[in-house]
C-alpha cells in the first residue's frame, strides 16, 4: 500500500462537494495537475468505508505572509538576501481535485475527510471506470497512452464501443501546429486500434486523407523510436512496427503523367495506385464543385437531365447532327457543341425547356471541372478508384490530396466518404468499420461560413456515422472554429499543446486555469483525453508512431523527378511487370499520341491484366504490317570463259 500523500481539508469558505474536494500535501509530494488520487474516508457509510477518486485540477501555495511587502522588508529590499534566513517560512501546498468516481456510488455525498493516496494502476482503472470494459471475456479497451504520475505508469484505455461505435463514436483532436503532434497521435491510435480492436466486433480499416506535406506518406516504412517510446509500446501492448498493410492513392499531376504525391519514389510505388475518375463519378458530385451561385434551379435541372438521359446512354435528337454516346468530358463537350450548334441553326432560344443561356452556363461550368481537377478527372472516362467492396481488415488507405486544388480535394473527399457510406449501408465494403481521418477540419467543417456539401456530409457522418461503422477521426488547430455539431458528436476528444487565445474561448470555460496552463505548455507526446467514461479530462503520454516521419521519408525516398512520358508510363507499367523495358515501350508507342499512350496506361492500371505487355500493346496499331525477313536469292553465277577464248587470262 502506498504511503499517505495528503489529507483532505474543507473549510466553510472552501467546502468539499460531491464533485470537488481539497487536500494538502507535503512540500515534496509528487502531486501535479492531472495527478489521480484516491481518498480513503474515515467514517463508514452504510457500513462501507467510502473511497473517492479524483484528479487534481488546481493547485495553490502560500506562506504565512500577509503581504508581499513583508517579504521585501524582510530582505531589506535585496532579493539575494535569502541565504541570511536560517528558517524557511511555513508554506502550504493545497490542491483541488475533481471527483472521478465515488465507491460506493450511492449515496452521493460530499467528499469526506480522509487520507489521500497516489492512485496506483488498479486505482486508475477504477477511477476512470475502465474496469467496466477491461473484464476478461468482454474486453473492449483500446490503449490511448500511459498515465504517469509519482511512479505510477498506468495504461489508459478507451472503450471501443465508444470510440468506434455503436454507443458513441468519433474522435476529435485539437492543438497548435507542430507541437500538438496531432497526426502522430492519430497514427499511434490507429496502430493501437488495429492491435486491440476486439475480434468479436469485426473488421476495421482506415481511410486517411493526406492534406498537407508528406505526413502520411510513409506509414509502411519503419521509423526511429527511442527506448522510452518502446517502453510505452510495451506497456500498451502494441507492437512497435509500421503499419503492415497500407495502400496509397494519388491523382496524377496536371500533365497526366506523374503522380501528384511526395510518395513517387520508384522504390515505393508498388502500393501506390493512381486515382482517376471519369465523368460519371464526377457528375454525381457536381454540387461539390458547383456552388449555389453557379447552379440555380434551371442549371440543376439541366444537369439532372444530362445525368438521366445523356450519360452512358445512346442519345439522339432530331436537332442534333448525330447520335451521341457520352462517357467522358470530351464526349460531353462534343454533345454540348452539337446542341448549341443545333440551336443556332434553328435560331431558337431553348431546347427541351432548357434555355440556351443555361446550356452555355452548364457547359462552361462542367467543362471547367476537368480543367480545375486535371489529373484527377480523366477526359476519357477512365476510372481508377479505391477498392470499394474489397476493403481489407487492418489496412490503411491513404489518399494523398496534398498537392491538389481545393475543389479537387473537396471532390475526392465527398465522393470517397459517400461511397464508404453507401457500401457500409449495404454492408458490402469488405470491412465492418472504417475510420476516416481528416485533418484541417477548420477548413472542411467551419463553424461559420457558407453551407457546403463537404460540411453537410461531415455533419451527417458525425451524427449518424456510428450506426454504420463510419467513424470520423478529425484534427484541427482551433476546435472553437469547427462546427459545434461535428465536435459535439465526437465521443472522444484529444487535446495537444493548445494556443492561449484558443483556450480563452468559451468552449474551454469548464477547464480550470491550471489545466489550461498545462494544456498551453504540454510537451510533445502528451495529450489531454476526454472520453465518455472519464468524468474529467486525463493527461496521458503516447509514443512516437513507429513509422517513418514525413521529412525523413522525403530525404530517404526523394520524389521522382519529372521524366519523359514514356519513362513515366514505363514506371507505372513496371509495377505490374518488372520485365518491361524502355526500348520495348518506345517501339510500341512510336506512332501513338500522348493521349493514346495515357489512355492505354490507364486501361492497364484499371484492368491489371496478367499479360501487361500484350494488354498495353493492344491499344496501338502496328506501324507497318509485320513481314518476315527473307534472304535475297543469290545471283546466277557468271558463265565460264571458253577455254579457247583469245581474250581470256
Amino acid at each position, binding site marked *: 500500500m502506498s504511503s499517505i500523500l495528503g489529507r483532505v481539508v474543507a473549510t466553510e469558505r472552501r467546502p468539499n462537494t460531491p464533485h470537488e474536494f481539497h487536500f494538502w500535501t507535503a*512540500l515534496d509530494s509528487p502531486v501535479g495537475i492531472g495527478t489521480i488520487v484516491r481518498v480513503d474516508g474515515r467514517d463508514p457509510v452504510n457500513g462501507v468505508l467510502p473511497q473517492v477518486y479524483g484528479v487534481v485540477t488546481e493547485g495553490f501555495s502560500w506562506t*504565512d*505572509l*500577509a*503581504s508581499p511587502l*513583508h*517579504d521585501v*522588508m*524582510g*530582505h531589506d529590499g535585496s532579493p539575494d*538576501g535569502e541565504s*541570511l*534566513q*536560517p*528558517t*524557511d*517560512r*511555513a508554506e502550504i501546498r493545497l490542491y483541488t481535485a475533481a471527483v472521478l468516481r465515488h465507491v460506493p456510488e450511492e449515496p452521493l455525498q460530499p467528499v469526506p475527510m480522509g487520507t489521500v493516496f497516489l492512485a496506483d494502476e488498479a486505482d486508475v482503472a477504477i477511477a476512470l471506470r475502465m474496469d467496466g470494459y477491461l473484464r476478461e471475456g468482454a474486453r473492449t479497451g483500446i490503449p490511448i497512452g500511459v498515465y504517469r504520475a509519482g511512479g505510477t505508469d498506468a495504461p489508459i484505455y478507451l472503450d471501443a464501443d465508444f470510440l468506434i461505435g455503436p454507443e458513441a463514436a468519433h474522435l476529435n483532436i485539437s492543438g497548435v501546429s507542430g507541437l500538438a503532434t496531432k497526426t502522430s497521435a492519430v497514427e499511434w491510435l490507429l496502430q493501437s486500434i488495429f492491435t486491440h480492436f476486439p475480434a468479436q466486433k469485426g473488421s476495421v480499416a482506415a481511410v486517411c486523407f493526406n492534406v498537407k506535406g508528406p505526413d502520411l506518406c510513409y506509414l509502411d516504412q519503419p521509423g526511429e523510436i527511442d527506448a522510452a517510446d518502446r517502453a510505452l509500446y510495451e506497456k500498451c501492448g502494441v507492437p512497435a512496427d509500421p503499419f503492415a498493410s497500407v495502400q496509397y492513392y494519388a491523382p496524377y499531376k496536371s500533365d497526366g503523367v506523374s503522380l501528384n504525391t511526395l510518395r513517387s519514389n520508384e522504390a515505393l510505388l508498388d502500393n501506390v495506385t493512381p486515382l482517376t475518375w471519369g465523368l460519371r463519378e464526377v457528375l454525381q458530385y457536381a454540387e461539390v464543385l458547383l456552388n449555389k451561385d453557379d447552379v440555380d434551379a434551371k442549371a440543376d435541372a439541366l444537369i439532372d437531365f444530362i445525368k438521366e438521359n445523356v450519360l452512358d446512354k445512346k442519345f439522339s435528337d432530331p436537332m442534333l447532327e448525330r447520335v451521341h454516346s457520352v462517357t467522358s468530358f470530351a464526349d460531353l463537350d462534343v454533345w454540348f457543341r452539337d446542341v448549341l450548334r443545333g440551336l443556332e441553326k434553328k435560331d431558337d432560344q431553348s431546347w427541351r425547356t432548357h434555355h440556351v443561356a443555361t446550356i452555355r452556363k452548364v457547359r462552361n461550368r462542367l467543362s471547367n471541372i476537368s480543367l480545375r481537377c486535371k489529373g484527377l478527372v480523366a477526359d476519357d472516362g477512365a476510372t481508377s478508384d479505391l477498392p470499394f467492396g474489397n476493403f481489407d481488415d487492418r489496412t490503411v488507405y491513404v489518399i494523398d490530396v496534398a498537392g491538389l486544388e481545393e475543389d479537387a480535394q473537396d471532390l475526392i473527399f465527398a465522393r470517397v466518404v459517400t461511397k464508404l457510406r453507401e457500401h457500409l449501408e449495404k454492408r458490402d465494403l469488405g470491412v465492418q468499420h472504417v475510420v476516416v481521418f481528416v485533418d484541417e477540419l477548420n477548413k472542411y467543417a467551419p463553424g461559420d461560413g457558407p453551407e457546403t456539401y463537404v460540411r453537410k456530409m461531415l455533419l451527417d457522418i458525425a451524427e449518424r456515422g456510428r450506426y454504420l461503422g463510419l467513424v470520423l477521426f478529425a484534427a484541427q488547430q482551433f476546435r472553437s472554429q469547427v462546427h459545434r455539431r461535428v465536435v459535439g458528436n465526437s465521443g472522444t476528444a484529444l487535446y495537444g499543446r493548445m494556443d492561449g487565445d484558443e483556450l480563452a474561448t468559451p468552449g474551454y470555460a469548464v477547464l480550470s486555469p491550471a489545466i489550461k496552463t498545462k494544456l498551453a505548455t504540454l510537451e510533445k507526446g502528451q495529450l489531454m483525453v476526454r472520453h465518455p467514461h472519464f468524468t474529467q479530462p486525463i493527461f496521458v503520454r503516447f509514443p512516437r508512431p513507429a513509422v517513418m516521419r514525413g521529412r525523413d521519408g522525403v530525404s530517404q525516398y526523394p520524389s521522382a523527378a519529372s521524366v519523359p512520358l514514356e519513362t513515366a508510363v514505363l514506371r507505372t507499367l513496371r509495377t505490374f511487370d518488372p520485365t518491361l523495358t524502355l526500348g520495348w515501350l518506345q517501339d510500341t508507342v512510336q506512332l501513338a499520341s500522348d493521349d493514346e499512350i495515357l489512355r492505354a496506361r490507364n486501361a492497364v492500371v484499371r484492368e491489371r491484366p496478367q499479360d501487361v505487355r500484350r494488354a498495353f500493346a493492344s491499344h496501338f496499331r502496328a506501324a507497318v504490317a509485320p513481314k518476315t525477313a527473307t534472304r535475297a536469292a543469290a545471283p546466277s553465277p557468271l558463265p565460264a570463259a571458253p577455254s579457247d577464248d583469245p581474250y581470256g587470262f
Partner: protein
Amino acid sequence: MNQMGSPALNVRAVQRQLATLLPEARPAATGESTLEIAGQGNDAPRLISATVLEGGPLRARRVFDPPTAGFRAFLDGTQRSELVSYLGGVPIILGRVAAVVRERRLRRMHTWHQALVETRLYCARQLVTPQAWEALSVTYGPLLVDITDDAADLASHPFALRDAAVHRVQGHREELEQRLAERWCNMEHDPLFIDGGISGSEKVAVSSCTVGVVKSHRTLYAEGEALGAVLSLGRYERSSVFRITSPRRTTVASWYLRLRDPRGHDPMWGLIRAEIACPQPQDMDRIGARADEVSRWILAETSPLALPDARWDKMVYGVRDCEEYLRAIN
C-alpha cells in the same frame, strides 16, 4: 497530532454541561474576545536597578561579528481564557493553555516530540455554594481550580475574580513551558530559544542550552544613565550584561539587545532582553563573549520577519511559528 493533555473542552460544551448541572448558572455571551485581550497591559511599569556583570557601568556594546544561526529549536506557549458562565456574580472561566517546541531541520520547522495542551475550569470556591462547588468538582474533577485557595482576601468584584483566573491560567501556561523546557534540557544539548524568561525554573535557568528572550518591558532593569543607555541602543547593539535576582526565581544573566534600527520608532522598537544562565564566578570574565555569541544567534532569527504579527519588531520567526502551530491545534 502531537498533543496530549486534558480532554478537549470548549465554552459551548461547558455551558451545555452547566445548564444541566447548575440551572441557575447564567451563560456568558459567546464570541467575546478572550480575557487576555480584554485585560492586557494592566501591570504597572517598573524600573529596577541591576548589578552589571561585565565591568563598569551599564553601557551600549556593539555586536561586531555577523549574525549566525545557533538555535536548534524554539519554545513558546499560548493561553486562552474565556468566560463561560456566572454563578450569581461569580465568573466561571475556561482556561486553555498549550506549549510546543518547534525544531528546525533543514530550514523547516517541525514539532519536537509532543506539544502540550491542557484545559482547566476556574471558579472562586469561597464565593459559590458548597453544593455548586461539589457539583462542579464531581463533574470536572482535577480540572477544576479554585482561584481563592491562596488568596483569602480576594475581592468579590467579578473583574477581580476574572483577573485572578487569568493569572492562574498564565501560571498554568508557564508551568507547561517549563515542563517542556526541562524536558529539552534533559534530552538535548543544543541551544533552545525560549519565548519569555527562564528564571521560573531552576533547571532551565542554569542550563547552558537555554536562552530566554523577553519582549515586554513593563519592568526595565535599569535606572538613570543606565536606562538612557538601554533606550538609546542602536541596531546590533547590546547593553552590558547584568544579573537579575528575585526571591522566588533563579538568578540569571541578562542584557538588552536592539534587533532593528529604532530611528523613527519608539524607544522600545526592536528591543528585547535576553536571559541566560548566570555564569559561575570562574567564568564571569567570559560573560561578554557569551552575550555576543547569543546576541548573534538572536539577530540571525530576525529574518524572515514575523509579520503580520504586531510584535514583529521583537518577535523572531521561530516563535511566530510556535504560535501558529498552537493556534492550529488549540
